[in-house]
């Protein structure tokens, strides 16, 4: 955890509610961006992100500081997302099919992992997003946590509440399924 995070947390615990705004600003884009892919809907992601930060504030005293603040925050977010899905009782929608987004258009904030591959074509991006959205919730969750959040298996296991072996197995199956979907899609396009 950074010293800045700790300072902001200390101020919150001292009664300065506004200091929490600093933590929100610091992590809102990262959390929201992941939730969008996790939930498949910008509106759902917005609801869950808001719920997450409020819960985090209310439970700030339970944060012991032995892990990164964001990891702790994300565990709250994951639980909030699970509860949210239960309440919604309908499967996640695909990002590109959701036109009721109040937020700005998606912006790629990260440099490409491999500069030689260049930017993805819009068509390929759409294929990947479609395929990701079609994965089962369990598979999509661990894959998003691994690939977009970069969490190690141990941390993913802590977030989703299952053994590391299960995480490893799910990630593998998710990759296999995603690979097959993309191959089929590319073949049908060809």
């Amino acid at each position: 955890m950074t010293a800045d995070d700790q300072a902001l947390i200390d101020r919150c615990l001292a009664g300065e509610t506004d200091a929490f705004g600093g933590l929100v600003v610091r992590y809102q884009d990262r959390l929201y961006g992941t939730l969008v892919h996790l939930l498949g809907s910008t509106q759902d992601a917005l609801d869950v992100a808001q719920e997450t930060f409020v819960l985090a504030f209310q439970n700030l005293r339970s944060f012991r500081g032995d892990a990164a603040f964001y990891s702790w925050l994300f565990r709250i977010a994951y639980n909030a997302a699970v509860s949210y899905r239960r309440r919604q009782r309908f499967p996640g929608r695909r990002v590109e099919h959701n036109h009721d987004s109040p937020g700005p258009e998606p912006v790629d904030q990260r440099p490409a992992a491999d500069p030689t591959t260049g930017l993805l074509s819009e068509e390929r991006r759409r294929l990947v997003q479609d395929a990701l959205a079609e994965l089962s919730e369990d598979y999509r969750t661990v894959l998003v946590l691994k690939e977009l959040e970069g969490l190690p298996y141990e941390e993913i296991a802590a977030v989703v509440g299952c053994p590391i072996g299960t995480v490893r197995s799910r990630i593998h199956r998710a990759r296999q399924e995603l690979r097959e979907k993309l191959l089929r899609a590319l073949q049908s396009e060809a």
Partner: protein
Amino acid sequence: MTPELPHPDELLSASHDGELSETERAAVERLLAESPAAREMLDDFRELSTLLQSLPRPLAPATLCRSILLRLETSRSSAPPVPLPRRRSWLRWGASLVAAALLVAVGTWLGRRGEHPELADGRGLFERDVVIATNGTATAPAEVSGSPGREGLPVDRFWGDSSIAATRLRQEARTESVPASEPSPSSGAVDAPAAIPPSPPREEREGFRGRGAVGDARSRALSFEERAAARLVIDPQSPPSVADLLAYVDRVADQTVIVEMEVVDVDRTAEDMLVLLRRRGVQVVGEIPAEAIAQAVREAAEAEPMLVGVYVEATDQQLAAVVDELTTQVAINEAATRRAELAQTPLDDRLQKIERDYGSQRQSRKLGDGALAPPTGDAGELQRRRQMAISQTPQSLSLPPVGHLAAGAAPAATPAGKEPLPAPTEWGVKMNLSESLYRQLDRQAEVGDRELPQDEMQPLPRPPSPVPAILGQASLAARHGGGAPAGDVRRVLFVFQRPKPE
């Protein structure tokens, strides 16, 4: 005994993530050395990672931080030390609010029958009122409408004044007198400044609120919810009427917009409204879930007509966009609903139904036409300030042409030779989906894409009244005996309350 290794592909996946034990790593190295398929699989995993990590990461909406801090403000008393599920708290609050509103509604109805003979004989306009959510925020407008001597009051003073209005309403109910906020039926004009009661003694204000709400320090200590409750003045023992409520809102906040609609499906309209608000990032203060609204609407379904008040926080731009969408979207939905209903009945029945529904509306409108005189004196000052607010109102508030509403297309310029659409000429927007609009929509549906003959183009909704919108509404509401839309058409009045523009 050597533990059984997972499937080779799973090992490859874990290898790609750097999550292998020493034993597994050795096994994977052997596999890669021996199997071209394994190497290809690993390459695919790497490419997949590249693809996934290159997906766009949407940025959080700019409103997220503010809305979170707003929610935290509401729960300041339960801040970090107390783990409190926020949503549950809101649900409880919302449920109690809706319940209280229903109590208000029943109490209002029973109480008003005694106060106003025109209500006792069944001619009352609002037989049941449903207040969905209340607004209360530290960013409340400092300018107090109708109170020229109180311009620029700080927020804390503002809350002190709200308790004054609250006390006034309560006093009126106790004495069973006609509230001062209601205009004289003979004059028709609404003298807003006169509706501001004198400040009651400090003890009386504190006694009514049941907590210290007077004075800067004490007001500052009030929680968000306390402020919201104070503003709405829900007191089951002496409930305000709709007219009182609207006039009260007008008195304490000069940044309110009313959208009035006559709709077939109130439930759906309320849902549409919430969706539109959320799409625009507008906060419904209190975050009453859609189910609560639906339930409130169902509870009130037996009484005709009804009023739904929703209090929101929005900037001018947000609210303008929502109002614009609300009027067009609901119009489209309403037209579709109505057409679907009418399509199931023979033509003669349909025409009779339209005549029956719209006939009484026409009658009720006549009661309101010309009943309000231009404001003078302090009311003129009030109007001047509102005109200033109009200048800040985006043009998107204007209504799109009816033909485009029916087609669901984007608004376009009014064709030459046709009556221009009424522009918003006052602070706030009052829109009726009037009989002429419905007639045109129905007729347009019959003729399809062909343009309606000129003689069938009904007059568009008349321009808003030039008098103060909310008090005008309150006045009409109080005097519109039998003004309720007939049949399955119901009047819905959305009250949007905004913070003062920066």
